[in-house]
C-alpha cells in the first residue's frame, strides 16, 4: 500500500516543517526559506558586504543546515542553528574571497540601492547619507575580529538575544556580553575616526 504524506500547512512549527522536509515535502523547504531568508541574508550581508556573496552564503547555509540536521538535534531553535551555519559559511566565504576587496567593489558598483530611487533633492541627500553611513558601518565592521563581528551581527542583524547568540556560537553568555560591549566600543571608535 502506498503511503501518502500530507503537505505541511504554512502555519506549521519549524519542527513540523523539518519533519515534512525530511519526508520529502518540497513546500516545507519553501516555507522554511521564506521564514528565515531575511535574517540569514542580513547576517551574511553584514559579514560579507555585498549581495551576491551574501546570497551564496545563504544558499550554503541552508544546504549545510538541512543536510546536517543530526548535529542540530533540537538543542536550540532551528533559526539559531541556521544562523550559526550561515554566519560560519559567510566567514568562510569572506576568507576565501577577501572581504575587504569585495567591500571596495561594492561601494563602487552598488546600483541596486533603493536609496537611489528617491526623487526629491532632500530625499536624495538623505539617501546618499544613508548609503554613506551604511558603507562606513560595513567598513567599521570589517575591522573587527571575526569573533566580535559574528557575535555583534547575530545580535544586531538577526536580533538574537544574548542566550540565543550564546547557543548559536557555543559560548557562554558572559562571553557574548563581553564581545558585544567590546565590538560596540570599537565600532564607535572606528566610526568617530571616519567622521574626523
Amino acid at each position, binding site marked *: 500500500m502506498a503511503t501518502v504524506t500530507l503537505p505541511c500547512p504554512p502555519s506549521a512549527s519549524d519542527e513540523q516543517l523539518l519533519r515534512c522536509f525530511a519526508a520529502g515535502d518540497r513546500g516545507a523547504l519553501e516555507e522554511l526559506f521564506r521564514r528565515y*531568508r531575511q535574517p540569514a541574508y542580513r547576517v551574511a550581508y553584514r559579514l560579507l558586504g555585498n*549581495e551576491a556573496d551574501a546570497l551564496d552564503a545563504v544558499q550554503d547555509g541552508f544546504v549545510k543546515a538541512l543536510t546536517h540536521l543530526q548535529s542540530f538535534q533540537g538543542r536550540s531553535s532551528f533559526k539559531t542553528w541556521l544562523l550559526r551555519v550561515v554566519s560560519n559559511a559567510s566567514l568562510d566565504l569572506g576568507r576565501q574571497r577577501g572581504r575587504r576587496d569585495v567591500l571596495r567593489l561594492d561601494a563602487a558598483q552598488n546600483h541596486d540601492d533603493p536609496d537611489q530611487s528617491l526623487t526629491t533633492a532632500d530625499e536624495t541627500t538623505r539617501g546618499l547619507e544613508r548609503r554613506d553611513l551604511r558603507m562606513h558601518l560595513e567598513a567599521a565592521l570589517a575591522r573587527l575580529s571575526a569573533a566580535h563581528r559574528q557575535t555583534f551581527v547575530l545580535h*544586531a542583524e538577526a536580533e538574537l538575544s544574548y542566550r540565543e547568540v550564546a547557543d548559536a556560537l557555543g559560548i557562554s553568555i558572559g562571553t557574548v*556580553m563581553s564581545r558585544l560591549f567590546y565590538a560596540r566600543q570599537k565600532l564607535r571608535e572606528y566610526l568617530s575616526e571616519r567622521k574626523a
Partner: protein
Amino acid sequence: MTLDRTNPEKPPTPEELLAHADGELPAAAAEAAEAWLRAHPAAADDNQALHRLTGLCRDHAAPEPTPAAWDRTLQAIESRLAAPKPLPGRAPTLRIVLSLVAAAAILLLLTRVFWPTPLLPPPELGTDDEEPYAVATADEIVIVSMDPRNLSNLVVGGPPVEGELDLAEFDEVKVLDRKPNNDGQVPEMHQGGNVPMILPTGAWGGKED
C-alpha cells in the same frame, strides 16, 4: 542571565550596563543597573550611545534582494539538496583504499617490531623541536569582571575545577613564543609574590609593576 554578584555594593560593569540597555538583565540586576545609571548620568549617556549603535545597524540594513534573486537562491538550494548521494559503486573504491591503508599500517608496525632502532634520548626542553603547550589564544579568554582583591591571581579555565590546583612557581614557567593580539598587546610574564602572572603590555600600556 545569571550574574555572579557576591558583592551587592559592587557597581555594575560596563558590560552589564550595556546588557541592561539591551534588555538582557534579569529584574534584580536591571534594577541595580538602573539605580546606578540614575546616579551617574554621564555614564548613562555613554551607555545609551553604545546601545544606539545596534539600532543604527538595524536602521541601515542591507538592500533587499529582488524576488528573482530569492527565487534563484531557493532553486539552487533545492537542486543541491536533491543532488544524488555518492553511488554505491564507489564503495569498492573506498574499501580498496581502506585495505591499502590498513596494509601499510601493519607493514609499518612489523617493521618497527622486527627492525629495532637505537633508542634516542628525549628532546631537551627549549630546543626548536619542542612544541609549545598552547593554553589559549588571546581572543579565547574573556574576563568579564574581577574582584580587585583577585587581581594578583591568574584565573583561566572553566568550572568545574576538580581536585586541588597545582600551581607553578615563577621559575617553572618558560615563555617559548609570544604573539601580539589585534590591539598590539603582548603577553608578559611577571612575578607576583610566588606565582607567575601573565599580563598584557604593549599598545594597551598596561602597568609593568
